[in-house]
């Protein structure tokens, strides 16, 4: 019976043109976004690879020079564009892609694509993720708002129920039909996306990328499932289809436009993060205090790079100063990043009421374009910076300090530069991403159960008349 009801509902949506027009528009948008995402990812990935290689060649081709000068030149870490960014670019367009691995300082990421964007980008990026998160529910509303309310108005519901059909079977059939409509549109797009991902994924990451894609599909299925049950529940609870569509559009506007902004502000109020100025001031003060303590302990003075410390100890001083700063940076950046993650977690919990927030987090997380992945990259880049600093300092201690007053006459050879490996970053595997998105996934699944329970209750209580 479920299959018959679903087949009839599906046929109706095909014949009344809703699936062709509304669905066709969404499918066209999805394929366009996919093409745009594919082209962007390919270009960004090629640029990243070329820039990373060129930067390393610059490092290797330095002349004989003082290692600390080389440390100040440093290297750059270019963030790879994950294959799944063709579906969901996440925070990448706004957060930058390059970190300067320079002496003494842990740098922030620079050069976000949004800086180079035209004013048109103020309207947001067209991505597969955005379409599914924002327009997907709208499609479900268009397809399903009158599923019960319309039939009640026409009198068909009364006739159907008079045949002895279980109301829950009707709900199941109608839900199946809406899922079938969504599937009919998304499956071709998913196949195209799968093929595109297989092309853009790095050979060693292909399986992981496709697995992430499969889980992403499950997440979106749960999200759209929530909307299917919400739409059917509201339709069953509404006396007329006009009331149903009004309520559903209000819900859609609230979740797509209002709630994300309100909850973003609310999460900032609940977990306030430091301003850039406050962060920099606190970091600088802590660095100075730590440095003072280290210099005092080791050289009996807090005046750095002065006459109190002989040049034969400048290599050691440099190493001590750098290594003392590492925990300070770790502490300050961890505090800042943890605050951002707390804000994010609050928004994920809000997904119980506003599912798009959990879906957005889960989508970015699986695509590898969320803050957790960005943090992982930033930490990897910082580790590489410290490795460079430690190598340069060690060389100074070994070769320059023994020269005493001639410390600055020392020039290292390109062999030292070659001892620094190129920066290679491999994004974490699926298990790591799923672990970080467990909350979003749990909230989505719980949301699906709650939405189904709401729809079942509404259908059981609905009036046939």
């Amino acid at each position, binding site marked *: 019976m479920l299959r018959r009801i679903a087949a009839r509902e599906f046929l*109706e949506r095909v014949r009344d043109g809703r699936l062709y027009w509304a669905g066709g528009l969404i499918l066209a948008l999805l394929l366009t976004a996919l093409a745009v995402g594919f082209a962007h990812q390919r270009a960004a990935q090629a640029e990243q690879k070329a820039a990373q290689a060129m930067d390393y060649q610059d490092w290797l081709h330095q002349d004989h020079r003082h290692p600390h000068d080389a440390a100040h030149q440093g290297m750059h870490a270019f963030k790879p564009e994950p294959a799944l960014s063709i579906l969901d670019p996440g925070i990448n367009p706004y957060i930058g892609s390059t970190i300067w691995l320079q002496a003494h300082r842990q740098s922030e990421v620079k050069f976000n694509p949004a800086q180079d964007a035209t004013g048109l980008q103020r309207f947001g990026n067209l991505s597969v993720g955005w379409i599914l998160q924002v327009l997907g529910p709208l499609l479900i509303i268009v397809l399903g708002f009158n599923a019960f309310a319309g039939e009640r108005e026409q009198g068909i519901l009364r006739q159907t129920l*008079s045949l002895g059909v279980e109301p829950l079977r009707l709900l199941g059939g109608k839900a199946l039909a809406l899922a079938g409509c969504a599937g009919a549109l998304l499956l071709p797009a998913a196949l195209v996306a799968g093929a595109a991902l297989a092309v853009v994924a790095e050979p060693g990451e292909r399986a992981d990328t496709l697995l992430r894609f499969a889980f992403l599909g499950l997440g979106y299925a749960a999200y759209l499932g929530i909307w299917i049950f919400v739409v059917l529940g509201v339709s069953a609870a509404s006396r007329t289809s006009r009331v149903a569509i009004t309520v559903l559009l209000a819900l859609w506007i609230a979740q797509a436009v209002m709630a994300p902004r309100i909850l973003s502000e609310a999460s900032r109020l609940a977990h306030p993060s430091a301003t850039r100025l406050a962060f920099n001031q606190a970091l600088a003060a802590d660095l100075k205090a730590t440095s003072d303590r280290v210099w005092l302990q080791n050289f009996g003075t807090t005046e750095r790079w002065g006459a109190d410390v002989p040049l034969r100890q400048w290599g050691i001083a440099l190493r001590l100063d750098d290594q003392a700063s590492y925990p300070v940076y770790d502490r300050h950046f961890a505090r800042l990043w943890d605050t951002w993650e707390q804000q994010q977690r609050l928004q994920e919990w809000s997904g119980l009421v506003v599912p798009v927030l959990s879906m957005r987090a889960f989508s970015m997380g699986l695509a590898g374009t969320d803050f957790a992945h960005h943090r992982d990259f930033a930490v990897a880049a910082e580790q590489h910076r410290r490795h460079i600093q430690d190598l340069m300092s060690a060389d100074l201690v070994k070769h320059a300090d023994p020269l005493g007053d001639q410390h600055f006459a020392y020039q290292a050879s390109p062999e030292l530069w070659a001892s620094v490996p190129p920066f290679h970053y491999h994004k974490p595997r699926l298990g790591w991403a799923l672990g970080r998105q467990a909350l979003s996934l749990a909230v989505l699944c719980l949301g699906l159960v709650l939405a189904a329970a709401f729809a079942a209750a509404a259908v059981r209580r609905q009036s046939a008349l």
Partner: protein
Amino acid sequence: MLKASGLTKRYGAHTALDHLDLDVGPGDIYCLLGANGAGKTTTVNLFLNFIAPSEGEASINGIDVTAHPVATKQHVAYIPEMVSLYPTLSGLENLRFFSALATGRELPRERLLELLDQVGLDRAAADQRVRGYSKGMRQKVWIAVALAKEAKALLLDEPTSGLDPHAASEFSALLQQAARHGVAVLTTTHDLFHAQQTATRIGIMKKGRLVESLAGEQIARTDLQALYLQHMRG
């Protein structure tokens, strides 16, 4: 087969149906007459459990409709005044879908066409979408659903309203045929002529109460119009 015992429906202070006692057995065609708001449609809706009784009980084939709303509907077919069908489907597709819901199995095309023949729907119309169907044509499709269901009881709410005399006469013939096969029929109507021609029992309702009952020979002997008007004026 269809039994009401002290069946009452109140909406706040207003009593739509007041302690109705009714028993429609196999082969009976029971016509409920009455003005608008007399409680006829309320009676049908209570038998279908579309509304809950305030008091009393309605049962179909001995089963309480409130306690077992789905089970009781297995025994009854309902034909409303305005039959609605899915406009994007043809008459045949509507019949296939609804008869499958009613019987739990998909009937073959030949059987569906037979049913449509039986109710007098033109074969050429069967494959056309019902968007262009007249009220009578839609009703025929729904009667075919009822026939496919092979229900033991029929509940009809103003079935001949809006039908032309020929279609109404065909419809009366179908009801009589069903009754001859042992089906219990409870129908509401304003059509006194149709009632007198078809019914084996007639009840006149006023303000939620059954004020007059006629059966068998009484129906033919009675000036139904005069009796009806007498109750309406009184």
